[in-house]
């Protein structure tokens, strides 16, 4: 498996660690105990698509970038990879 790192080009699978669904970026900023339902969904509920899946990969044996990789779960074709930081900023995450 080869992942197209946006800064470093095609890199081999073995340099990366997998985390999971890129929805983990959308963490609810929950402080009150009433927010448990939103947090619960964030921590435990995942879609399991047959097709395009956006997922988090960490370039652990590389530049330590977190990436959002778009992969077709049926063919393993990789449709793109972005820096997760850019994705998070574009989604309005900041401080």
């Amino acid at each position: 498996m080869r992942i197209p790192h946006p800064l470093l080009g095609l890199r081999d699978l073995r340099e990366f660690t997998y985390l999971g669904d890129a929805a983990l970026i959308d963490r609810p900023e929950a402080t009150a105990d009433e927010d448990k339902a939103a947090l619960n969904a964030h921590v435990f509920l995942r879609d399991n698509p047959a097709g395009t899946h956006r997922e988090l990969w960490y370039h652990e044996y590389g530049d330590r970038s977190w990436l959002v990789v778009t992969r077709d779960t049926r063919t393993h074709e990789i449709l793109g990879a972005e820096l997760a930081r850019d994705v998070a900023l574009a989604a309005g995450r900041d401080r």
Partner: protein
Amino acid sequence: MSGGARLAGGLIERERRLRFTFDGQVFEGHPGDTLASALLANGKVLMGRSFKYHRPRGPFSAGSEEPNALVTLRTGARAEPNTRATTAELYEGLEARSQNRWPSLALDLMAVNDLLAPFLGAGFYYKTFMWPRAFWEKLYEPLIRRAAGLGRLSSQPDPDAYESAWLHCDLLVVGAGPAGLAAALTAARSGARVVLADEDFRLGGRLLAERGNLADRTGPDWVGSLEDEFERLPNLRVLRRTTVFGAFDHGVWGALERVADHLAEPLPDMPRQRLLRIVARRTLICTGATERPMAFAGNDRPGVMLASALRAYANRWAVPPPGPVAIFTNNDDGHRTAADLSALGCQVAGVIDMRPQAPQGAGYEVFAGAHVRATRGRLALRAIEVETAGGRIVSLPCRMLGISGGWNPNIQLSLHRGGRPAWSDELAAFLPGTATPADMRVAGAASGDFSTRAALTGGAAIARAALSELGIAAETPDDLPEAEDAHVRITPCWHVPGKGRAFVDLQHDVTVKDIGLAHAENMRSVEHLKRYTTLGMATDQGRTSGVIGLAVMAELAGRSIPETGTTTFRPPYGPVAIGAFAGDARGPGFRPVRLAPSQAWAVEQGAVFVEAGQWMRAQYFPRPGETHWRESVDREVLAVRSSVGLCDVTTLGKIDVQGADAAAFLDRIYCNAMASLKVGRSRYGLMLREDGHAMDDGTAARLAEDHFVVTTTTANAGPVFRHLEFARQCLWPGLDVQLVSTTDAWAQIAVAGPGSRALIARVIDGFDLSDEAFPFMACASLRICGGLRARLFRISFSGELAYEIAVPARFGDALMRRLMSVGADLGVTPYGTEALGVLRIEKGHAAGNELNGQTTAQMLGLGRMVSTRKAAIGAVMSRRPGLLAETRVQVGLVPVDPADTLPGGAHLFAEGAPRDMRNDLGWISSSAHSPHLGHAIALAFLEGGAERMGQTVIVANPLEGAEMRARVVSPHFIDPEGVRLRG
């Protein structure tokens, strides 16, 4: 001895002879021979015994598809079972032994199985070894294991080296037959980076085994001129003896290069085999085709082989058949073998062609519309029985029978990444199909183009097409030779009905009747057929048997072959030794070893080491006269409690956190407050996972407003750093914070015990160590030993007055030696991980056993640390009702009988309660002998622990069959008020 009888021609070096042995008997062959060709030239046809029935077998093929001629090559530690004699390249001194026979190949007493064959059909094991259940492990399993397998492993460590390597190219060409050679030539002349791999030791594929394929020159002659040109092309890498065994995602290929298998033993520093991962932008599958047989009674007699193999032995290796030859065919290709052998002066007894309209033979008889009904002979073929078109039975004396049932394109690699093959009625064969991935193309016989001309032009065409996608212009070579362009004419036939056993899978002894039995017992899916009969599950993976098995099954079910479908093709295409996958990742190379800065010093002290992840850590330091590890550990513990001890704690993870928002960032990482930490102070911190469970703990030291150093446990250094980077990049990308791991940059030594202040004072440069100036949990950057920069932390894992002192890693060894020498009069004592563990258990500190991913802050007795005033990771989720209702909390245990030990992992029960899951009250997470208290102590998670203080619980250890009583106490076995560490 003469290298055996030979025909004219062939690709062997006749002037050189190679001596070799088979079952101890000495033979001679020539360079260029395989073991099989050399044995055949010496008149040896019998080479093995079949797996189940121990039937005598000779070689069935001349290549890697071989099911029969499996031998053990070499002796001693290098002995390798199940080596195919048909691919083993001959070398001087080669030693081979036959397998699966006793006492000898010619007289195998295990052949009694053959007489029992009526009882040993498909599913025999499943049906027979069912009852009684008590026999499973004691009787049946040892029995079956003894009978299983063909060869025997040496059971000695492999003395050879293996390595793995990467190759990157624009174009990978798999197979160096006519299609692959034309493709490689086209691509290499364009300047593209090309890798050409072939499993044979000689390039050419079927061109080496055929006569008259090219118009003006012989195949080997053309291949020779290509090899000269290949030598001059630096952008082309030719890999001989290399099997591409698997296609993996995104253009990654697995290949096995047999670097030294053709030598008696590898040259110095030479690996025996090399596992290549080839990353190719485009790949051309030019893997050719494999001839398949037809099943008929007695088709496994030694001397019966694929017609194309007979032809290959005669043309390439100049091996004459031991007597008259007959051919049994359903297509025109069978006649080529007869014609070639006849041209070489061999006697052809006849061609038995299933087709009524069979072509006429030149110089041999053709039995049109006939079939072979049976064979005669025991250890070698003597005659065949032919039933003619008119129903007459003719006995035809012959020593070899070539079978040609058509050709199966070698499509396996094109299907490893998924997809199903397509059936061609015209060719009676499976073709690659439409689901071939976009970066792969198939040409030549592998794509069903069986003529040499089609292979040459097809190979060149797919090379051009693939390169044009990469923006590389290539031209079809104008010097490709003219070649034959024959069409395939075949009338499919899979098996000849009749009495007698007709073998489909020769290696696993699966007959047509076995497939019928599986069908009768309702095994309707091909996957079920495969597993029930073990068809195609032998080392040859059904290369010659798979399609026939499907065809027989389709016939029984009244379905077409494509409707019946195929089993899934998966890597590896050929057997790959586990050693090759391991490469140099074995022994000390299994994984990197990390050594603490004081390693050399610790070795000098005679330390005993223990693996902690990748780290080697000193476990304890035995002294002369100490005969048991407990003596050393007790002494080290007591030294810390009474004077001063030193321990290298470099292995704990260290993360440097810097930036204007460093404090805010850590406030969200730790469940307890961090932003309020003053410069020059440290704080214990607990991290939670997002789901509210405890993740890791450590200390955070604030060296400046915008600079923290946090520590992690040794085991979690990597995962915590990953977690922090996730939080920084994905959750709060706007925070001004930077992280760097400094675990390896700083050597850190724990200096613990009442004498620690005095010892530290002897190495630091003018720094006030008084309790007022540098109290418990203080930290500072300072200079030691006359100018060396260092960091000092007043933190304690042991509960004693203690410091940790850090210096740049390269000074760690020197600092350890300095502390040891200047502290000699203070009784300074090195201690290892074992004493470290005892000290922290005595103090009730959690470690890996307690932070096991299933515990919460509340269970650890740290519930009140979780701040409710901030949004730290995991804080809200840790207050889920289910977690809050958890009453199992960390407690201390001491044995009621002081002589008892408290085993780690033991479970706790109330006195009188049944010892079952319902009544389980918790478990012991850590235990030790406390030399300070003089008896065993333990940390445990106990249900309702807070209310059970002073009560007695049962410690059950059913694994070792012991039980003891223990009293519940505070987990702080020593100095619960913390007087010592603040001293």
